[in-house]
């Protein structure tokens, strides 16, 4: 009892201290882009918002309506999708009288910190947009509501099973899947022609892409492509199990893995890809592509809209094809989820909002304004995804939808996934730089990851 009390006291003390540290940290990061707080309906037309005032209506108040405010946080959707999100929120509020939704949009980098600060301050949001990595980390800390336990079968049944299970940890699933993007193969027609390659014959395998890149480098001096490495996922989609069925053994030292690692090492050593690809992300690749320094773009199709805005000439010269597939024949889907923190005070309403934002109607409407793919079965079957114009973005849409049947997110499904996979990331750089051989990469990463996994399993 006294121990518990002390613990509580300690926690109070630390919460205050932490809040201050967080406040300072966030002010540092504020330079990266300011968050935006949008009251739902604030940008909708005046008569609409006027008619939806609930507390003013006497008939409703006599029925003692619930008076609930839900905090809804998203990642980087404002201001581009203000109308869409506000429209959806308004519909949800109309269907659920007495519930008000307050929408806050945050930059990607600020999400984790802000969320922690709020939870620590006893002011947790109700519905939060997280990627699968962040979801799994928080789920591992028992911070998220288990949808298998608290959501209804009806709510759960609308999603593709594979995508719904992306956030599975033990027997629980800690998120509703929202939207995801797939990579498409986008290439600069002009550079292809200059290199003497046929723009109508895009590569269908990674090996073909490598050969194209060699030719492009020889003929034009430009790089063929920038690989944006994700070693754990790349290995997984190359047919490496990564983790055993019973989640007790790390399995990455396999012949398929060695083949993939060696292939990449050669690519890097022979200077077929830029040196910076070692730590390149999609932003780097897009920057280089839109400035005409690189012939192809192998990132998410959604990045095409950035090329369109920043470099219309390159965009007009862009052709789109199916992404070469890795050995498993599957594509990596970078999934966005909606989660409900345990500390939320309104679980049923919050789950309802998360479900509403990710339902067929909401997702279909969202997909119509930006190149993303829906996680629900009915929305994905809509004819919208098979029709389209001649421009690169429409083609990218049709192509990514075609790829969607082979899409899957990658998670280990264990606690502290980020920490367990870290050796694979860090040794990857050492391997490319030649500090360790591909064989050493696999054996060292496997044993290092295994050690962390054992610790995590032991701590259970």
């Amino acid at each position: 009892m006294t121990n518990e009390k002390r613990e509580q006291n300690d926690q109070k003390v630390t919460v205050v201290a932490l809040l201050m540290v967080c406040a300072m940290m966030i002010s540092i990061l504020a330079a990266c882009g300011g968050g935006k707080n949008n009251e739902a309906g604030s940008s909708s037309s005046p008569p609409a918002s006027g008619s939806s005032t609930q507390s003013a209506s006497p008939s409703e108040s006599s029925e003692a309506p619930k008076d609930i405010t839900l905090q809804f946080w998203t990642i980087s959707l404002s201001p581009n999708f203000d109308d869409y999100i506000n429209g959806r929120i308004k519909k949800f509020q109309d269907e659920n009288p007495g519930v008000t939704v307050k929408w806050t949009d945050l930059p990607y980098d600020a999400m984790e910190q802000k969320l922690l600060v709020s939870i620590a301050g006893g002011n947790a949001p109700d519905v939060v947009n997280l990627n699968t990595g962040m979801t799994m980390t928080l789920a591992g800390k028992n911070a998220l509501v288990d949808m298998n336990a608290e959501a209804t079968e009806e709510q759960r049944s609308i999603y593709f099973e594979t995508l719904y299970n992306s956030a599975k940890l033990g027997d629980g699933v800690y998120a509703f899947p929202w939207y995801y993007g797939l990579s498409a193969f986008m290439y600069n027609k002009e550079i292809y022609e200059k290199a003497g390659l046929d723009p109508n014959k895009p590569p269908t395998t990674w090996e073909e892409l490598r050969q194209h890149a060699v030719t492009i480098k020889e003929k034009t001096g430009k790089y063929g492509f920038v690989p944006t490495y994700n070693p754990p996922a790349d290995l997984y989609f190359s047919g490496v199990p990564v983790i055993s069925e019973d989640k007790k053994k790390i399995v990455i030292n396999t012949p398929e893995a060695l083949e993939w690692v060696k292939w990449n090492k050669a690519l890097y050593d022979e200077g077929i890809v830029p040196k910076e690809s070692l730590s390149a992300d999609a932003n780097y690749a897009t920057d280089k592509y839109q400035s005409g320094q690189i012939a192809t773009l192998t990132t998410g199709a959604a990045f095409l809209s950035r090329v369109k805005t920043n470099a219309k000439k390159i965009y007009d010269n862009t052709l789109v094809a199916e992404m070469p597939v890795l050995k498993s024949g599957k594509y990596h889907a970078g999934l966005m989820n909606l989660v409900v923190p345990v500390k939320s005070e309104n679980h049923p309403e919050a789950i309802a909002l998360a479900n509403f934002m990710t339902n067929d109607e909401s997702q279909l409407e969202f997909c119509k304004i930006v190149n993303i793919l829906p996680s629900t079965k009915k929305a994905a079957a809509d004819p919208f995804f098979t029709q389209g114009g001649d421009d690169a973005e429409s083609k990218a849409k049709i192509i990514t939808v075609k790829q969607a049947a082979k899409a899957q997110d990658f998670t280990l499904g264990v606690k502290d996934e980020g920490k367990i996979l870290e050796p694979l990331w860090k040794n990857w750089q050492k391997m490319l730089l030649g500090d360790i051989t591909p064989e050493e990469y696999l054996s060292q990463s496997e044993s290092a990851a295994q050690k962390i996994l054992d610790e995590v399993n032991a701590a259970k």
Partner: protein
Amino acid sequence: MFTNKLMRRQAIFAYLILIPGIIMLLIFTFYPIVRGLPLAFTDYSVVDTTHWTGWKNFKRAFSDPIFGAALKNSLIYIVVVPFLQIISILMAILVNNKLRFVQFFRVAYFVPVVTSMVAAAIAWKWVYEEQGILNYFLMEFGILDEPISFMVETKLALMGVMIVTVWKGLGFYMMIYLAGLQSIPTEMQEAARIDGANRWRVIWHITIPLLMPFVLLCSLLSVMGAIQVFDEVFVMHGSLGDPAYSTLTTSVYSYRIAFTDFEFGYSAALGLLVAIIITIISIAMFRFTRKGGLTYYE
């Protein structure tokens, strides 16, 4: 009696002026430090239940190879200090002359100080890239045959960040030295010159010894800044200190432990260890030079 009254009034006035600063320090520095200390002995993660773990976090720190690598990088980072100090002293002497446009130079040298570190670091990234400006010039002048990326070579990456720190800090220290130069009496320099000392001898034997208190202050500030370096590393090489931890510093590491791994307890322990190291270095610097602060050497 009168003097006492005056002194009292002055003292009251002084305290009044000091109060706002003290309040800010109490709230934003001392309070978090005191309250943060116990964190280092827990497994606090914000969201999960907290347990008292004793010395576990510290034991872990001593056997954590990544923290070791980060600590080594942070200590290597101190190499920026002599460069920063020597160059900024020379710059201060330069802009202390009655040159034409001297005001322009002072402002120009100060511009990096007021530039946002995030923006500057992104620009420097472009300079260092394989297809960046630096490689262009090095190839153009025939120094390099093949471009190298200053961003991903493990031996060069940290040096690249250090150059950014020097570039950004020069103007700040130059200003302190300039203030120092303008506060030291000119008679001695004149006397030396009359005795036939040349320019360099005057600088070496008169100006720099007189500047010593400022050198100490600036060195201490820059040593502490170097060990705690965060922004430039974080923006240029991310929270993992790419490539392969070669640019990871203790601040970035403890930030990552706290905000991506949610291990605030361990992060606090790391912060505490670094604070102890900084304290030891600062005390050593004071001891080594016997006198510190803004007292003149007589």
